[in-house]
C-alpha cells in the first residue's frame, strides 16, 4: 500500500524537516510554497501608518509518497523536526495513493518508490 503525506509546516522549519526525513532515509519529496491558515488565524503586520491583520500566512507544504510501512517513522520525523509548541506549527494529512509509475523506467506500484540508500534498503542491511 502506498500513502501520501501532505505536511503543512512553518517556512523556517523546512531545513529541519528535510534533515529529519533524510536522517531516517526518506529521500523523495516535493515542496510547495502555500498560503493559508488553521487555528492560528492570522498575524498582525505594520503598515505605513499603524497595523493591519493578515489572515493567510505563508507556509510550506511537503508532499511525500511512501510505502505504508514507513508512514509512522516519517510522521514521527516530521513532528519531531517541525515542532515548536506554538500555534502555527502546522498539520499533517495522510491519504491513500492508487498507483505510481516512474516515467523513465516505467516501474509501477510500490516498487517504483524505492531509492538507493533509502529507509527500506537500510532495513534490509540490518
Amino acid at each position: 500500500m502506498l500513502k501520501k503525506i501532505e505536511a503543512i509546516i512553518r517556512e523556517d522549519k523546512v531545513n529541519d524537516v528535510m534533515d529529519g526525513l533524510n536522517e531516517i532515509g526518506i529521500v523523495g519529496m516535493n515542496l510547495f510554497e502555500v498560503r493559508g491558515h488553521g487555528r492560528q488565524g492570522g498575524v498582525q503586520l505594520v503598515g505605513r501608518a499603524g497595523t493591519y491583520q493578515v489572515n493567510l500566512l505563508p507556509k510550506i507544504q511537503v508532499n511525500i509518497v511512501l510505502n505504508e510501512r514507513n508512514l509512522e517513522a516519517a510522521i514521527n520525523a516530521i513532528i519531531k523536526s517541525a515542532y515548536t509548541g506554538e500555534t502555527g506549527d502546522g498539520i499533517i494529512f495522510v491519504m491513500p495513493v492508487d498507483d505510481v509509475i516512474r516515467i523513465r523506467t516505467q516501474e509501477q506500484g510500490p516498487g517504483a518508490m524505492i531509492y538507493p540508500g533509502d529507509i527500506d534498503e537500510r532495513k534490509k542491511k540490518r
Partner: protein
Amino acid sequence: MDYPISAGDTGWILVCCSFVLLMTPALAFFYGGMVRRKNVLSTLTLSFIFMSLIGVQWILYGYSLAFGPDIKGLIGGLDFLGFRGVGAEPNPVYAKTIPHQLFAAFQMMFAVITPALITGAFVERVKFKSFLLFSLLWATLVYDPLCHWVWGQGGWLKEMGVLDFAGGTVVHIAAGFSALAFALVIGPRKGHGSFPIEPNNIPLTVLGTGLLWVGWFGFNAGSALAANGVAVNALVTTNTSAAAAGLVWMLLSWLDGRPSTLGIATGMVVGLAAVTPASGFVTPLAAMVIGAVAAPLSYYSIRLRERRRLDESLDVWACHGMASTWGMIAAGFFATLSVNADGANGLFFGNPAQLGIQLIGVAVTIAFAFGMTYLMARMLHASIGLRVSPIEEEVGLDISSHGERSYS
C-alpha cells in the same frame, strides 16, 4: 542690456535639472513597490509616462502658458510656443546668470513630476486612456495657470507676496488635493476595506525613497537658480526636514507596533514635501521643526483617511498635500531675510502679515486644484469612464491594460 552667463550657476542648474528628472522614475519605484504584483508595471507607467507626455507638452505650449509674458496676472502669453526665443540668452526676469532655455528645462522637470504624484490616488483601477486625457487636461488647465500665478512674472499670487520656494503650492498641495478629489470620484479599489491590500515589494519603495531624496536636492537647492548660499541652505534644510520626519515617523510606527521600513520611507518623503516651500527661506533648525511636525500631521491624516474608508490609495493627499500645507504655513512663521534677502520675514521675525499671505496662497491652491480636478474627473467619469471593468481590475492592469506582466 546684456547679462553674462555664469558657468558655475549654469553647471549647477544643469545638474539639478537632471536630478529632478530622476525623481519621476524614483517616484515610479516608490509607488510601484506599494501596489499588488499584478499592477506594478501599470503603476510604474502611470508615473514615468509623464517624461514623454509633459516632455512634449512643455516644449509646445506648457512653458509659454506658465512663464510667458503675463496676461492680467492669470496666465502666460503665447510668445514662447515651441520654445521660440527661449535660447542661450538669460531671461533676467527669472534667472539672470543662466540660459533662458536652462531655466525652462529645469521648470519642465517640475511639470513632469507633479501630475505623476497624483497617480497614487487611482492606481490599480484607472483606465489608461482616460488617465492620459485627464493628465493632459490637468497639466494645461491646473498646473500651467497655477505655476504662472505663483512663479510667473506678474502672476497674482507672486505679486501678493506668497512665499513658495520650490513648489509647496504648485507641486505638492496641487497634486495632493487633486489626488483627494480624483479618489472621491473614481471610488475605491475592489475589495478595499474588506481585505488588506499589501505592498508587493517594499525594497522597491525604499529604492525610490533614496532616489527621491537625492533628486530633492536638485528640486529645492536648484530652485535658488544659482550656485550660491541660498542653494546650500536649501540643500541643508531639505536634508534636515527629511531626517527629522523619518525619525519621528519611525517613533510613531514603533508606538503602534514596530518601526516599519515602509513607515520610515514614508516619513522621509513627507519631510521632503513639507520643507519644499520653505527650504530657501528658513534656517536648518526651523527645518527640523517643519519635518518633526509634518510627520504626525501626515501620519494621522492617513489614519483619518482610512477611518473614512476613502481609497486615496497611496496617500498623496496625506503625504504631499497636508505636509506641504504645513510647510507653506511654516514659511509664514519661520521665514527670515537673514537666510534669503529676496524672501521675506515671517511671524517669528516681526512680520505677521506674511502668515496671512501664506494662508491665502494655500487656500487658493487647494480650492483651485481640488475644484478643477473634481470637475474634470466627474466629466470624464460620466463620459468615457475613469475605471477599467471589474474583470480587468481583478486580472490586474499589467495584463489588462498593457498586455505584459512584471514577473514571469
